[in-house]
């Protein structure tokens, strides 16, 4: 156990300043939500003179907050479940069965990392149209479940480090592959699952591009979309936009703070080893 020496203390002070500067953008955002436009111009970084919740009240009034929250929640949670299930299963098969087909699939999946969404926007739109999935929540869930590719990547790396003895024992006892996977292997994958869940939740919750392209009805809109209604080129009502931004981010922030330990745990468990 290293001792807490003076150099460490000085380092700590330095880091404090570094962090403070690092955090300025977020601070600016939060603080501005309590001010009027004129106040924002006068002193952008000053602390608000009063905890004026008017802006927040006004913002909640203009947003269909709860409807959008529900939409975001449904899309995110179902998609994440799909991602975990599909990604882990695919990774298991490819990591354990080392035949040519599986090897080929391993590379096949990696193509997904190379493709920017913009290059396939129109064809994807046509595909979704043929599936009658445009402007539907199931369609969005389907789209987001493509994140299973990244999950596959993480799972595969981890499964490779697991000794196969446990599974072999189960096979010899007569268990099928399916059973073996779910009852023995999957529980061991918890650290990776935690990481996958956390990252995908954040990404899907915050998604803008796929959402604005494929969801149109305001009744189906997600929370993030509301923010952009306050951010037009011709309408820049900061006093509404900022609280909306904070309200839209709040669930994510809370989620992140709650999950922080798990994130560190998941990463520590060697989920990202390549």
């Amino acid at each position: 156990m290293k001792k807490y020496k003076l150099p460490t203390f000085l380092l700590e002070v330095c880091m404090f300043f570094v962090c403070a500067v690092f955090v300025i953008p977020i601070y600016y955002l939060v603080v501005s939500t309590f001010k009027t436009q004129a106040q924002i111009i006068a002193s952008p970084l000053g602390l608000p003179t009063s905890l004026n919740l008017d802006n927040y009240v006004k913002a909640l009034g203009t947003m269909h907050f709860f409807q959008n929250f529900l939409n975001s929640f449904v899309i995110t949670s179902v998609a994440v479940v799909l991602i975990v299930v599909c990604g882990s299963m695919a990774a298991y098969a490819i990591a354990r069965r080392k035949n040519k087909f599986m090897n080929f699939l391993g590379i096949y999946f990696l193509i997904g990392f190379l493709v920017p969404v913009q290059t396939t926007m129109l064809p994807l739109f046509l595909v979704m149209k043929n599936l009658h999935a445009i402007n539907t929540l199931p369609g969005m869930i389907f789209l987001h479940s493509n994140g299973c590719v990244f999950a596959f990547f993480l799972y595969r790396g981890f499964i490779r480090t697991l000794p196969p003895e446990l599974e072999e024992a189960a096979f010899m006892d007569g268990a099928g592959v399916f059973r073996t996977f779910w009852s023995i292997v999957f529980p061991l994958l918890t650290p990776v699952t935690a990481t996958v869940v956390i990252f995908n939740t954040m990404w899907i919750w915050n998604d803008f591009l796929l959402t604005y392209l494929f969801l149109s009805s305001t009744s189906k809109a997600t929370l993030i979309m509301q923010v952009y209604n306050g951010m037009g080129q011709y309408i820049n009502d900061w006093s509404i936009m900022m609280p909306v931004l904070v309200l839209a981010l709040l669930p994510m922030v809370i989620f992140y703070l709650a999950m922080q330990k798990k994130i560190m745990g998941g990463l520590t468990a060697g989920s990202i080893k390549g």
Partner: protein
Amino acid sequence: MRFIKRKEFPYLLFVLPALLIYSTITIIPVINTFVYSFTNFDGLSPKFNFIGIANYLKVFTTNNVITSFVNSIEYGLVSPVLVTLLAIPLALLLDSQMKTRNIQRAVFFFPSVISALFLGYIWNFILSPSDYGLINGILLALGRNKLLLLSDPGMAMVLLILVNVWCSTGWHACIYLANIQMIDKSYYEAAEIDGAGGFDRFKTITLPNLAPAMTVSVMLLLTGSLKAFDLPFALTNGGPGYATTMVTQTIITEGINSNRVGFASAMSVLFLLVISVVTIFQVRSMGKREENLS
């Protein structure tokens, strides 16, 4: 089919859902894009013709398209280098015995939680060339002249890369941190006994053990930065002029907005080639490095 024995079949089923989803959402559209690139499809009219490689030739002769390729490559290659150079030392710092290290980890990780579009907007205010931008405001208050910042084409790209570094460093530092914490402490103790200094210990123990994580981290950074759209778009909208316009943005403005999907598809295919070549090269060479170091 000989090999679909009973044993193989379940594994096939395991792979099937992910395969179907992925093929439908990623692979099929990519194939479509490839086909469109040889046509003059305009995105509105249902009729179009094959025009051979005319679109590809146009890519090489349209100035702002070439500029955007250069921009994307510049942004995509410099960001990973900077992030990696900063993330590893930061990970070391976060591994120290500082009392506030958990808060520090949270602070640095935080930007990844927020959508890049919002971050772009916030940084736009900070780096604004107007008197009311944060930095300029402070400079003016101190009696100095304001800076052009985002209005200067060269500076805009530099600032964009720096903002990207701000956004990404914490995330990757946490990856490195996790891997550092897994290194057996006994190695360090042994090295210390042998008289190795701090930097030597880092070079001979820490760095080699981080090699696998480095390969992955750099690959993610590389593909992520090359594919970037949200941050450049939100921060500068590709400006000033075409200075920070990325290929992803050009594909949209020249393709969907301009009713020239065939042309945009050619750009997409070429860009995919660039990303593939760069990434394969990176993974191969860093993979070799991994082997050499282990």
